[in-house]
């Protein structure tokens, strides 16, 4: 699934693809994609704040490393699913959500 998206380094946004709510983050030159719904409280991580490579959930403060999906801060305990992202240039990235 391809999506036209242009993020500056350190920016993030939520997109809906195949009915899935996905968080896309650009760290440096690399895009990362993971489930947008927090594994803990189901709030949307795209409304949270990025700190280094950690996204902080705006509801309870759980955090996740966006480069790996690993949970890095309580009260969240479970990791987020991640998705492969390919940067196709010209502001277009493709995501595999299957």
């Amino acid at each position: 699934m391809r999506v036209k998206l242009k993020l500056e380094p350190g920016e993030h946004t939520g997109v809906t693809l195949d009915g899935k709510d996905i968080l896309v983050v650009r760290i440096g030159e690399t895009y990362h994609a993971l489930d947008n719904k927090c594994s803990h409280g189901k709030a949307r991580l795209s409304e949270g704040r990025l700190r280094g490579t950690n996204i902080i959930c705006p509801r309870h403060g759980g955090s996740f490393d966006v480069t790996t999906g690993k949970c890095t801060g309580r009260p969240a305990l479970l990791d987020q699913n991640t998705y492969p992202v390919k940067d196709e240039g010209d502001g277009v990235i493709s995501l595999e959500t299957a």
Partner: protein
Amino acid sequence: MANKQASPGSARMPGPSYRELITRDNTPPPGALLTEQYTFAGDNDIAFANYTSQDYAELEFARMWPKVWQWACHETHLPETGDYCVYDIGNASVLLVRNSAGAVNAFVNACMHRATQLKASGSCGFVNAITCPFHGWTYDLDGNLAELPHDWDFPHVDQAGSGLRRIRCEIWNGFVFVNFDPQAVPLEDYLEVLPDHFEQLPQHPREITLHIEKHLPANWKASQEAFLELYHVRETHAGGHPETDLAAQYDVFGKHVSRFMHTIGAPCPMANPVPSEQVLMKRLWREEKNWIPGAEEDDVPTVPENETARDVYSALLKRRFSETYGHDFSNVSTAAAIDSIQYFVFPNFFLFPGLSLNIAYRFRPKLNNPDQCLFDLFYFQPTPAGRSPNQAPEPIRLGLDDSFTQVPEVGHMARIFDEDTGNLRAQTNGFKISAKTGATLGNYQEIRIRHLHQTNTRYLSNE
């Protein structure tokens, strides 16, 4: 032997004083660095029980910690609306959050429902609203109870009166302080000479580049006392060589504030013969050059005739800092640029305002264990002109047996911090095995330790 007839506390290390040395600098020091304030404060031993007794620690938690201004975080921990961080002291936990008006609020970090801790100890983060993870009681950034799920079941709850409990919170110079006592004096009054002195010292915007939280095997007072005096330098850091003694000045300004200052790059007061300025520059370059952006091993500057290593080194540092950060540092005095100037605010806040040595310390009991504490170490740098300060970094946590050398960003100071903290376990053991009942202090060089205990005692006596 020393002259026992002189009035106690009046003796000083032979050789030129700190004040005499800095008045020779080519960029003169501000008045704040020329003031001297020392009064002999007794020479009784300090009871070891002050460090080891659980009862004493409990008394501190009951009577001292709830009454004092404590440095909780820096403004750069909370740059935007909704940013929060948690400051913990003993069993107390404070939630600091920036509201939509840009002010910093401090709250007891517990839900008004069934007291669940709202944000984890030691954590920093961001919220739109403060939502308890247990049942979802939700507070706005000013602490008001904004959402009470199933409010039909709580007809007895006065929602307007169920906001988070506020704690006094005031900011000085970017440092956010909290005080649990609603009747406490304003922070500016508590800080005594500090605001006035800092107006005379470098005033550029700063950001935190490094935060280490080190777990130490000693009482919080014993740990910070290793940083309150320079008497230890010769043995702890230099293998007992007398030529490493420092020209130092110790001041006690009031109930809460004390200071030491020592030269960087000047000869040891007792050096005989006095080394040449070029030899001093070589030492300075070997030990201190890492503070100068772009300094190379082989670039030892030449000290022109009739100039001093201190002034030449300071001028280079100020020039490189000006080029690197885009602020004009040319008027900063030699002493303020390069010397080790350390202010202390009771009970546990240390701040070095210099250009090169711009660091802060904080020491807190580890929960309520009198034999352990947490040592927070912060490095600052000027915020480059043209942008806002970076958000403060997350702490790097080091355990009891970890070394500061494990963190490359600590740089050449890592060995010194390891040496400073390396005596603490032995001292803690010694408190319990000593044939004496208390610590003996030097009248001048260890006056700040005596002052710490005297102020602590005043709080414990409810004075």
